[in-house]
């Protein structure tokens, strides 16, 4: 157990040092969510006037949507860094040391979690500057960030699994491009459920992005619905555990096939 903890610590230390060496990446990748937040926020301002939307301010509505969508797009490229490490021989260098395989995977999870949390907070702050309100406040915002982190970890784990099993950058890029828009628009990120066509409503109920949004919005509302937050949050948690296990398992498969 201590070997796992110290291994995870040093592997994480390495990744965070790399992140601090080049923090501009974290800021530059925020450009996309900014566009979503300010462009979509302005363009579709008036959709809240549709009967049945259920909120008065669209910017209030989309901040959680942008936070979760950013978590999806930021983390779905995690596999690219893993590809670099495979090609450079770095992964093999660690695999022949006593460090545990799960420590290597854990370090990726911790790094993704920290960068996702950081970017989520920046989006929340910029949303607030643009006039968004977070009535759920002190408890709701951590719930939103936690939901974003879980979604991010799921996507990063899947992206890493692809990198380890397929070892092809184009597949990773292709899948990301293919998944990002459906995951976003077949969810309640930008449109209230009540106003969706029935088939999209059904599909979005099975979309983890919606689970994250349902959990976050339930916690962020003026009268938080903790039951709903806990229910959707726990589905998300189960999915996260499954995705991380898959990523750890794919290490073994990587070793069999290299």
């Amino acid at each position: 157990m201590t070997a796992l903890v110290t291994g995870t610590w040093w592997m994480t230390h390495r990744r965070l040092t790399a992140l601090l060496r080049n923090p501009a990446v974290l800021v530059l990748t925020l450009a996309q969510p900014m566009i979503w937040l300010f462009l979509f926020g302005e363009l579709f301002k008036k959709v809240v006037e549709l009967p049945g939307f259920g909120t008065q301010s669209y910017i209030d509505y989309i901040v959680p949507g942008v936070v979760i969508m950013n978590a999806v797009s930021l983390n779905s490229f995690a596999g690219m860094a893993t590809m670099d490490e495979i090609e450079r021989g770095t992964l093999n260098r660690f695999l022949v040391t006593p460090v545990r395989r799960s420590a290597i995977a854990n370090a990726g999870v911790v790094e993704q979690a920290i960068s996702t949390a950081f970017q989520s907070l920046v989006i929340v702050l910029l949303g607030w500057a643009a006039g968004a309100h977070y009535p759920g406040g002190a408890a709701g915002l951590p719930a939103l960030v936690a939901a974003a982190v879980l979604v991010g970890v799921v996507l990063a784990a899947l992206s890493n699994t692809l990198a380890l099993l397929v070892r092809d950058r184009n597949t990773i890029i292709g899948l990301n491009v293919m998944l990002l828009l459906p995951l976003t628009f077949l969810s309640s990120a930008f449109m209230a459920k009540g106003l969706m066509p029935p088939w999209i409503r059904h599909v979005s109920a099975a979309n983890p992005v919606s689970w994250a949004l349902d959990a976050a919005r339930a916690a962020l509302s003026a009268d938080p619905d903790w039951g709903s937050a806990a229910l959707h949050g726990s589905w998300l948690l189960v999915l996260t555990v499954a995705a991380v296990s898959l990523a750890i398992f794919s290490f073994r498969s990587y070793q069999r096939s290299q």
Partner: protein
Amino acid sequence: MAHAIEAAGLVKTYPGDVRALDGLAVTVGRGEILGLLGPNGAGKSTTVKILTTLIRPDAGAAAVAGHDVLRRPDRVRRVIGVVSQRSGADPDASGVANLVLQGRLYGLGGGDARRRAAELLARFGLEDAGSRPVKTYSGGMRRRLDVALGLVHRPQVLFLDEPTTGLDPEARASMWAEIARLAGDDALAILLTTHYLEEADRLAQRLAIVDRGRVVAEGTPDGLKGELRGDAVHVEWAEAPPEPLLREALGRLPGVREVVVDGPRLSARADDGAAAVPAVLAALDQAGVPAAAATVARPSLDDVYLRYAGRRFAHADAAQTPEAAAAGGAR
């Protein structure tokens, strides 16, 4: 005490029915440098991957420093150092940072890891570059750092997988000097893979020649060459003399055999080439076909490879299909 490396019957087949290893067996004694010599795709890197716990063989058994590679990979990892074909050093981190992290992964404390890093940088002539990012290093410096990374935890067995591939001649010579110095350490056994005949000849105390996933010959470089019994004697003329005349002239000479005539050139094998040349020249003079030139060559590892693998080394290297060569490179 057990051998540093003991492997027998290793078989590994990759998808697409590529048989990388076909019953390979190899033993490395304590403190010995064994050279695994073979063309690209012969199975050298696959062998290293199995012995360093990166992959599992389909069949066979292997032990490193007495620990079973399949049952106790965790123990094997503590006692091996690995310098693989691809560097693996973090290009954006400094040499010191790479070495300290490596030490930490083997459980060294902060002070010990930093001391060991400084010691290794000094030993490999990298003190001045220690705080620079590795991406600013030259190919030779990077390779020396790779070897330093493999030695951080004072391993008992060091694997050097094609350590000089891609280096310029100067960097290669300096890497050879480093490896030769490592050989002076009695506690360290080294398994070196290479497809350079000269590298194997210079560095390895013992050689295992690998061809198509098997060891086809084993021995000291001199012993293997000695088994070929004798030097090659080459004679040339401006115009090809009649072959029967040559055969008759040389047939009676003691210690000269395996005469091969190819147009205006003749090759033969002699127990002692230098002593045989005057007799050969005199016999040819007497027969009325004086030679234009004569040379003597010590048997080379290329000759050894030819004898055991049935083809010239350079041909075997070039005969790889692009797919097999690419796959070999990745393994």
